[in-house]
């Protein structure tokens, strides 16, 4: 059954956060950042500033050399991060460091299986839990491969967040939603991150379809780029996920050698603030 809690000791951070959003009567803002982009210290400044800028849930991308489901922006961000020395253990350290200053904002790690496979799945789950990570999205682990990491992750007290897509029809949805916990990430377009955008009407319909199958909150992402789009999504879903366009802002603050320039962090956080403000007004009208 869906709706498992991520840990055994009462509601998890993710559950508390979505309960709070519900109480406030608004949709949430989830922001994706690629860990270590463009360099570890600049990244940590951005990460630290996200809650203050109005982000409700943080998705930290675990950089991978071959991110098949991602578009050019996130690919480039991953490669910048790897070039600047980021690793999977570095990503866990980053999460742990964030936790020393923020014990409330949920952290979801998102990425691909191979670095985890290489790190050792059991050790990874233990270390991620210890670092204060709340959930995982592993793009290339479908339900058919649940024994690999999904079930062990749930046992370890981590949320397992699955991507549901327009191809997840009514026959497929129960499979997708089984063993999903925390929230469901609905991929609103057929394609890779940061390319096309879905219409508000299509998203409304898709969310209604998902809600018929699950009580979990529904976050909607892929192709959500502007404050206006984020608001449109947050009006009909439980949260909007923005990634590529945040990374575009980051890229605008890089010099020709991909080094951070002085205004970079403010530029990124300013854009995130505009997303958050827009999302907060979404259900007011």
């Amino acid at each position: 059954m869906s709706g498992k809690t991520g840990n055994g000791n009462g509601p998890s951070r993710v559950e508390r956060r979505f309960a709070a959003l519900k109480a406030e009567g608004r949709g949430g803002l989830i922001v994706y950042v690629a860990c270590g982009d463009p360099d570890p210290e600049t990244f940590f400044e951005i990460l630290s500033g996200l809650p203050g800028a109005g982000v409700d849930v943080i998705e930290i991308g675990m950089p991978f050399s071959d991110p098949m489901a991602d578009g050019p922006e996130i690919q480039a961000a991953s490669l910048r991060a790897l070039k600047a020395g980021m690793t999977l253990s570095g990503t866990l350290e980053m999460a742990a460091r964030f936790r020393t200053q923020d014990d409330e904002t949920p952290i979801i790690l998102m990425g691909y299986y191979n670095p985890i496979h290489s790190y050792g799945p059991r050790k990874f789950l233990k270390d991620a839990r210890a670092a204060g990570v709340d959930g995982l999205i592993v793009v290339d682990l479908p339900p058919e491969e649940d024994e690999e990491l999904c079930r062990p992750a749930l046992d370890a007290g981590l949320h397992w967040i699955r991507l549901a897509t327009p191809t997840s029809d009514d026959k497929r949805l129960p499979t997708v939603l089984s063993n999903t916990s925390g929230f469901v990430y609905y991929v609103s377009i057929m394609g890779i991150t940061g390319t096309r955008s879905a219409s508000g009407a299509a998203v409304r319909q898709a969310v209604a379809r998902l809600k018929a199958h699950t009580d979990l909150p529904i976050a909607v992402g892929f192709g959500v780029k502007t404050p206006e789009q984020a608001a449109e999504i947050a009006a009909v879903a439980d949260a909007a996920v923005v990634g590529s366009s945040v990374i575009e802002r980051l890229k605008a603050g890089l010099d020709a050698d991909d080094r951070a320039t002085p205004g970079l962090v403010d530029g990124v956080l300013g854009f995130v603030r505009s997303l958050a403000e827009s999302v907060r007004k979404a259900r007011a009208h």
Partner: protein
Amino acid sequence: MEALNTYRGGPDERGHFGHFGGRFVAETLMPLILAVEEAYEAAKKDPGYQAAIDDFAKHYVGRPSPLYFAERLTEHFASRGANGNKGAKLYFKRDELNHTGSHKINNCLGQILLARRMGMTRIIAETGAGQHGVAVATVCARFDLPCVVYMGTTDIARQAPNVFRMKLLGAEVVPVTSGTGTLKDAMNDALRDWVANVENTFYIIGTVAGPHPYPAMVRDFQSVIGNEVREQMQAAEGRLPDTLVACIGGGSNAMGLFHPFLDEPSVRLIGVEAAGHGLETGKHAASLAGGRPGVLHGNRTYLLQTDDGQIIDAHSISAGLDYPGIGPEHSWLHESGRAEYVSATDAEALEAFQLCSRLEGIIPALEPAHALAYVAKIAPELPKDHLMVMNLCGRGDKDVFSVAEVLGVEL
């Protein structure tokens, strides 16, 4: 059902060969992968499907390809032995004589007929050396389907003749700039295309890799190679061959040759990976010799990767072997010990390329030149009645420009 003590029973229903293989893809692709599997299972039960493949294989591709006794190379290797009484009897399986010049068309034929059964109206593919891309473009022209081929910019530069061939055949060749612009990057971009176009697009994967059912399906289509060798060797020598040798990038020509012989314990199977500048230099494409198990492009298999699980770019003089992974069934045959995997360097392959051209009047592709380089190492000391079959899986026309460059010859 196969008996339990068989090497030919795999994969299981979830696509696993031992713990290799599987279906490691994004959810967007999952329904499509399942649909391909379902369609393929249904097609296998339809005699009309196999009959159509056989018909095109005979009249369009030119199968069966000959099993040719390479007499002059056999004499050459015998003369290299420590005494005059040795030297294996070498046969070439001439899959370079197929229409389009390599074994790749065997698989493309099976897949495009499947795509048509599924009602798909657009074909995509990845290519390294361009042999697979040319084969896909060929069947797309023949069956009137639009074709998009993803090819790394590095490979486009070193395989210009094949790029032009694909264009002549009406395909769109999309240059891939991500990563190092080679086969793995082309595969990433083909997968990205597929995710965005699942409703009308069929992805013709060129090797025995990717998510289930591709490794098994491509193997089945390529097994025509081994099945023919079995019959032809029976006719020529009245018995099974002793050793089979094939080069390995993703491993489709090797798997096609090996698979019908997996349960013949007397037949030694040798796969030759590309050692590039040498295994010790780190600049190679030998996933089994220099990699470890991981997950990429939909399956668990041996991969070239860093300690952090980042994929390392492969290197080989041969664009067709330049892939940091290997088909999952090979990983399983490697760990189970049923097949042996060795390697040959760029330099050794170049030497074999020239040797084969001069002695047999056959310019091989650089890919099977790696297999021949290994044959050169072991043939001289094997007994004269030792029957060895090497899969000459591609012709070298596409490579003459890059070989000329390496040899310092200006054309």
